[in-house]
């Protein structure tokens, strides 16, 4: 089980939204990336949460500054529109690139990126919102716009198109620190045969253990719970090991 620190960035700050809205500044991406790297994070995810909304390119200087400070994998996303955007991010220090909004407009970007960069570098970011019928719908533009696509179907399509990983976020539970949407994560993990990183909802150590045991994702992304100093990556890993979950230390 990989334990990942997720930075939601509104340059020049890492912010932490609740339900993807209401931003609070929590520090610079570079400082926090180093802090979580030193705490033992297996990976760092950097999501520019406004570039898609503002229709501007991700700011490469911030990517480089952060990438050069850490010796673990670095996934970057936000506002990625084209294969050329993928390429630029890799050249500025990303090891994986996440994509959401543009893939809903033209899903073939997943195929094209996987063919050039290898599937292992292409992460499809899903922002899920629960529906009354018990299913989940994919949202785009940082949880603002419904896409009409069913989350489980979209996850399967992303895999079929060559994506190497899914970052699964929940608009309902994100930033609240009240537990993950276990049913959502389990539904996606069971539907695909590529790694799923579960995000949105880590609050207590028990809530992290719960998602690890109940949904068995390949990775768990932590944000607010780290930003507000409720716990550290080291404490999370120690706790999971005590409870019999396999993590790298």
């Amino acid at each position, binding site marked *: 089980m990989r334990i990942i620190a997720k930075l939601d960035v509104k340059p020049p700050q890492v912010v932490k939204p609740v339900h993807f809205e209401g931003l609070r500044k929590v520090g610079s991406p570079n400082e926090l990336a180093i802090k979580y790297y030193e705490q033992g994070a297996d990976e760092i995810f950097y999501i520019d949460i406004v570039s898609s909304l503002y229709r501007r390119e991700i700011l490469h200087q911030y990517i480089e500054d952060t990438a050069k400070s850490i*010796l*673990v*994998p670095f996934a970057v996303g936000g506002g990625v529109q084209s294969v050329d955007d993928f390429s630029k991010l890799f*050249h500025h220090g990303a*090891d994986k690139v996440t994509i959401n909004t543009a893939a809903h407009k033209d899903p073939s970007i997943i195929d094209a990126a996987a063919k050039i960069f*290898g*599937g292992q570098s292409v992460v499809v970011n899903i922002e899920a919102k629960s529906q009354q019928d018990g299913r989940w719908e994919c949202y785009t533009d940082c949880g603002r716009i419904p896409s009409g696509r069913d989350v489980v179907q979209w996850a399967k399509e992303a895999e079929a198109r060559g994506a190497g990983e899914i970052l699964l976020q929940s608009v309902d539970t994100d930033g609240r620190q009240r537990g993950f949407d276990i049913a959502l994560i389990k539904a996606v993990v069971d539907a695909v045969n*590529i790694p799923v990183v579960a995000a949105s909802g880590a609050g207590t150590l028990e809530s992290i253990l719960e998602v690890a045991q109940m949904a068995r994702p390949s990775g768990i992304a932590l944000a607010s719970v780290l930003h507000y100093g409720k716990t550290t990556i080291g404490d999370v890993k120690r706790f999971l090991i005590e409870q019999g979950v396999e993590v*790298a230390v």
Partner: protein
Amino acid sequence: MSQQIGVVDYGAAGNVFSISRALEYAGAKVKVVKRPRDISGVDKLVMPGVGSFIDGMRELNASGMSDVIREYAGAGHPLLGICLGMQVLSNVGFEYGETEGLKLIRGEVRAMECKGVVPHMGFSPVSVVTDSPILKGVSPTDLFYFMHSFEVQNYTDIIALSDYAGHQFVSGVQRENIFGLQFHPEKSRQAGIRIFENFLAL
């Protein structure tokens, strides 16, 4: 004086940035090698690893770097391939169809077949099966970052093996001055830096 290490830039793909930073961290001076003439003055060469086999080879063939790399390795200079960079050292790859590799290491590159989810992503140990200077000091508790869907399959030149979801695969190869590693030393904390230090010490 610090050694000049060439890092091959494939074009669209490749993580030249990460590899360069990690090599500098280990004490190297880095030169990006994109065109054949860039090879001059390079003491040792690293081939990084992001991309698919077919596109990686297409780029290397188009730029004329394939021949340059073969000549460079043939002359006895140290060459280190990482992830895709290791895979393209093989005879042939089967990612998006059959593609000829650089044929510097005997082997073929095929999709991983195992019970776990693929790509294999995360930190795993490597077990050294043949002493190799590149793996000097690697202990069974050291963890290295893997991020791959394909693996090199061969029966010679193996220096390290790893396990993923009950499936054993080749994580390191060496044929004289040519080294290949399936994992990413540049993403493996201090354990990875040691690998680069070993490479610099060759």
